[in-house]
């Protein structure tokens, strides 16, 4: 099997894998980065969201061959000490319940605020619609995003 080099969370990593392998399995099972989660496997739930060059992609249906030479960031690499403004707002608003969807939610929200520091409700809905939460923590997700946006202003 070919050796594949990846740039994950600012580190060079290499794995033996078939180039068609979904990035999610490489991250989780080979590199031990289990923050991104498996849930649907067909790019409709967002639990597996990671940043590829700053943009969220569902890693469950992204072949690893497509991300060679990119900067990949998982929830583990979003901030040094779990203190990205979105993470801080998430803790303050006590968003997670079971927590399984939350790394996808946080990665997606971080992308939103990076591009739109002050989103309105509709923009939050449009952007966050990609990520499902079975515990239905949506009300607090909205509040946390609005809080992170507000904190970012000051």
């Amino acid at each position, binding site marked *: 099997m070919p050796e594949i080099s990846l740039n994950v969370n600012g580190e060079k990593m290499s794995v033996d894998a078939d180039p068609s392998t979904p990035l999610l399995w490489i991250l989780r099972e080979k590199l031990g980065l289990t923050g991104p989660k498996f*849930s*649907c496997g067909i790019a409709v739930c967002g639990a597996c969201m990671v940043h590829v060059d700053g943009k969220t992609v569902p890693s469950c249906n992204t072949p690893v061959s497509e991300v060679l030479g990119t900067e990949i960031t*998982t929830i583990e690499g979003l901030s040094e000490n779990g203190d990205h403004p979105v993470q801080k707002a998430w803790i303050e608003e*006590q968003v997670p319940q079971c927590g*399984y969807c939350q*790394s996808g939610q946080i990665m997606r929200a971080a992308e939103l605020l990076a591009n739109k520091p002050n989103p309105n*409700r509709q923009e939050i809905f449009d952007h966050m619609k990609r990520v499902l939460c079975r*515990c*239905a923590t949506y009300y*607090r997700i909205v509040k946390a995003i609005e809080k992170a946006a507000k904190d970012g202003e000051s």
Partner: protein
Amino acid sequence: MSKEKKEKGTISRRGFLKAAGGVTFAVAAYALLPKIPFGEDAQASGDLVEQTVTAWVRIDTEGKVTIYNPAAEMGQGSMTALPLILAEEMDANWDDVVIEQSPIEPAIYGSVMFSNSRRMITVGSRAVSGYFDSLRTAGAQVRKMLVNSAAKEMGVPAGELSTEPGTVLHKSSGRKMTFGEIAGIMKVPETPPAVSPSELKDPKDFRLIGRVDIPRHDIPSKCDGSAKFAIDVRLPNMVYAVIARSPVHGAKPKLTNESVVGGMKGVIKTVALGHGVGVIAETIEDALAAKAAVKIDWSGGDSKGYNSQEWMWARKYASVASDPSKAGRAEENKGNADQALASASKKYSADFYNDHVVHAQMEPLNAVVSVAADGKSAEVWAGSQAPDGARTAAAAVLGFPRENVKFNQMYLGGGFGRRSTADYVEEAAELAKHVKRPLKLIWTREDDITYGMMRPASLQRMEAGLDASGKVTAWKHTIVGTGGGLMTSGADTQFYTFENQRIERRDIEHGIRTKHWRAVGHGPNKFAIETFVDEIAHGEKKDPYKFRRELMANFPRAIKVLDTAAEMSGWGKASPEGRAKGMAFAERSGSLCAGVVEISLEDYKIRVHKIWCALDAGIVVQPDNVKAQSEGSMLMALSTILHESITYKDGAVEQSNFDDYHLIRIDDTPELIDIKLIPSTEHPSGVGEAALPFMGGAVSNAVFALTGTRLRHMPFTRERVKATLEKSA
């Protein structure tokens, strides 16, 4: 309580240590092993009939207090709430508390729930209510031991001492000892002191219970990816397994291309199972590729021929409900409902339906099993609502005594009732027998949905008779569907009084798998009851709020909840143009909940703008978390009200993933969810489901208020709303 029973229930200190898994203590750390003799008082009050040990606290000389959490943590927050209850009575300083998951030993960490036996099972929103008394007693007992030891050390009577968080004080001399200091000198008595209920704190003195600013223990780890679910477990040399499961429940598999699959990259083995074919491979992607390639001949099947929508749309359930020869099981039979109905001066009747829904917890079912090299013991990692049952089940599959299986309880990526069955743990254990390596079994989302265990689809036939004064004298509720007792929870009207009442269940066997789904039958039943109540109120030209108030006249607690929701929502005042309000009331797991929703229709799509909710859950341990649970319950309810539908065709589920099984997404979030918790000193009741059941009625009643048309079949998808409104136009 007999002497003999007492002895049996007591676990000696040595026995306790052994049972608890041989936990070792750091040097200078001290163990407090509270034995909790439930005194005659507790027994006399009828809550508990067995004496046993339920909790465990460790204090080290630095003052660190380690408290075990015995419940599954699946997002409901029990792992914070339960230790907090103990810490309250112990007067621990919350900042000094460390929480650990308890070992899976029900004799010690179980709670008395359904029978008199102790069980470790997190279901029915019973964690806080089930453990409240025993954890308070355990905490008080630890406090007493600390005080007694300090008294001895200071040479003063224990009665002169008091506690502040983490400290024992002798007020008159100003001397004090921290819990850590006491831990260094104390001798744990062979028999711990008895604590009578009168020695517990007066709720007004609570320092921790009821605080809004104590965050949940598990949340930071769920914001940085470090929280570990079973699916995250990786072991050296581990293999991966998936199972191709029968599309029709009960069908038997025959793999027809074993040699092809066996020769695929990474495939280690295929395993014939009763309900499918397991594939074990070096990597998960290899296992999935092999699963996609298997060719299986299926034969038979219990659910073959089941077409779910026919039973509803073609009125097959309705004909069962109408057929007097099909009389079923009476769940309630008070007075004579039939007679009262026959002699009523006015009658109402209506049929309500709900489709199947599936748990679809975001973490697919999975388990890791590692059998020891000598083949005599094993370790299991799983997230389970019933870890003891899962441990026993794994042991049975592996052929070991239960003691030889170590069960590691992990965070649950959602439970909702699905994870109280151990099938996924048994499957992993079965497959692990075929390889001498640790094995991780993962269900795909397609497995989860097509091979799911469903909330029953059902018909609710409601009939009521009123006398000339407009009083409801007869109430009949007939439930038809598959799933037996799962269909009946919540059909009783605990807070509405009817002189003559019959609740009847007519079972139809469809051969599918059904299961408790958050709030169980309360979702469908309260939808039917609350819509029907609204319907009678309108028929009688009464305000639905006032009408409910009349029905619950005997229950001031319920009235208070209803009044609060009415007031919060400005009931009676007009909604903005294009919007309307609906109200409903429902009790669940001992909690009382009333809610009002304000909705509009956008091209037949129901939009919920605001929800006002009043909840009486007795003493509330963690108010912010109770609000979070309520928000989640309401929106999960909304998911089933607007979107979720599992349908069967010829016995097979027609949906397979989140692209065709639709869950609520963020854009259905209301602009306001306002929750008021009614202050109370009553025993805590369940909060994980309490705010779910009222939603169906509230939404359908709001749609009626807006359009004059009743919606009677959940989910109210855009298509169904359109069809119903166009038909009635």
